[in-house]
């Protein structure tokens, strides 16, 4: 019998190792898996590479991981915000490495990882600093930049409802990067609002099928 439901966030992250690459869902605070992030801080893993759209807001979620000095490197599209003080401080002190990635390229690199694509050409960023040193190619009359997938050890995401097979639905714009991250990581851990019986989720509206999910925690 398949049962991906785990008793606690701590149990779900117990095998996290130093140096892991961790995809963290959320766009700002929408879809941010705060319970899992708190558990990751408690778990103690260091030298993490994180992927998220932002680099943390105020004292919440991802910002608290940076504050706890667990992050060595971050890939994101929009680190600079009025309330990103923990990142700003760590970045200026040289404690954290930043790879700035255009938002659509960030999403597509994770999609590619989950879909078995070796690399892809995108028109985004051609002729800009963010394409410097990258392979380019003209196809038809458009210039493209070659981008590689982002594979990860873990994805920590938030969903709305799940069943024991790990099928997921999301709520409003909290969906954002989560379905892509779920597909790109070896171990996807999901924080959900509600766990329902198998069969209760309408198969027509399941967004992330359980094949992408390893562990589910109700918070």
């Amino acid at each position, binding site marked *: 019998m398949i049962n991906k439901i785990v008793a606690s966030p701590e149990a779900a992250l117990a095998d996290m190792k130093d140096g892991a690459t961790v995809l963290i869902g959320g*766009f*700002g*605070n*929408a*879809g941010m898996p705060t319970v899992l992030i708190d558990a990751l801080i408690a778990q103690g893993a260091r030298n993490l590479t994180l992927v998220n759209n932002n680099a943390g*807001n105020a004292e919440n979620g991802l910002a608290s991981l940076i504050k706890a000095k667990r992050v060595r490197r971050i890939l994101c*599209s*929009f*680190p*600079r*915000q009025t309330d990103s003080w923990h*990142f*700003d401080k760590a*970045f*200026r002190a040289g404690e954290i490495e*930043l790879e*700035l*990635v*255009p*938002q*659509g*390229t*960030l*999403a*597509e690199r*994770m*999609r590619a990882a989950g879909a078995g694509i070796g690399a892809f050409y*995108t*028109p*985004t*960023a*051609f*002729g*800009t*600093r*963010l394409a410097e040193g990258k392979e380019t190619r003209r196809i038809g009359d458009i210039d493209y930049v070659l981008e590689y997938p982002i594979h990860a050890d873990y994805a920590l995401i938030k969903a709305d409802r799940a069943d024991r097979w790990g099928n997921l639905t*999301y*709520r*409003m*714009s*909290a*969906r*954002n*990067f*989560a*379905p*892509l991250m779920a597909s790109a990581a070896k171990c996807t851990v999901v924080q959900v609002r509600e766990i329902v019986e198998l069969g209760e989720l309408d198969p027509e509206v399941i*967004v992330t099928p359980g094949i992408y999910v390893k562990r589910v925690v109700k918070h």
Partner: protein
Amino acid sequence: MKKLDRREMAARVAKDILDGAYVNLGIGLPTLVADYLPKGREIILHSENGILGLGPKPAEGAEDEDLINAGKQPVTLLTGGAYFHHADSFGMIRGRHLDIAILGAFQVSVAGDLANWHTGGADDIPAVGGAMDLAVGAKNVWVMMEHLTKQGESKIVQRCTYPLTGARCVNRIYTDLAVIDVKADGLHVVDAVEGLPFEELQRLSGVPLKKRAIAA
């Protein structure tokens, strides 16, 4: 001559958005355009974080932290709106499905190069978000910005000195002084604020402008 204020600029831009258009509004000044969309037109706003059919901001107390726009402000969803994930959202952008992206800018060049993500300062933390995707992907890229910097220098330039967001991507510039089309043969003035003669606009802009050919 009276410069347009930010709200008047937003109203000027909104007037040009046609019924049925799919539009992305950038963070900051462009976001104001949402308040001035002409009544009677169905215009669908796209948000990078997976929304089509953005509605007005919610009543106080009715905010939902799961429903925000790209600027992370609380919003609502219009009847008929849809949610989707980020790869779909940027597929819509790069796949040339959006009719218009309206973006802020530090500088636009005569060739339509756009600089709006990084001042290039050594201590400045860069942030790009979806700007580079929108610049290459939208069918039309409209820039909305003040015509001059605080020091009085034109933000329409021969060559951008700030790092580029996209090359040759801007189709139209809306400023507090004028509306200017970017075409292969140069910059064409569509209109200017009342009391601003072409020659004065030309002098302030510092790059060659053409008077718009009168349509037959």
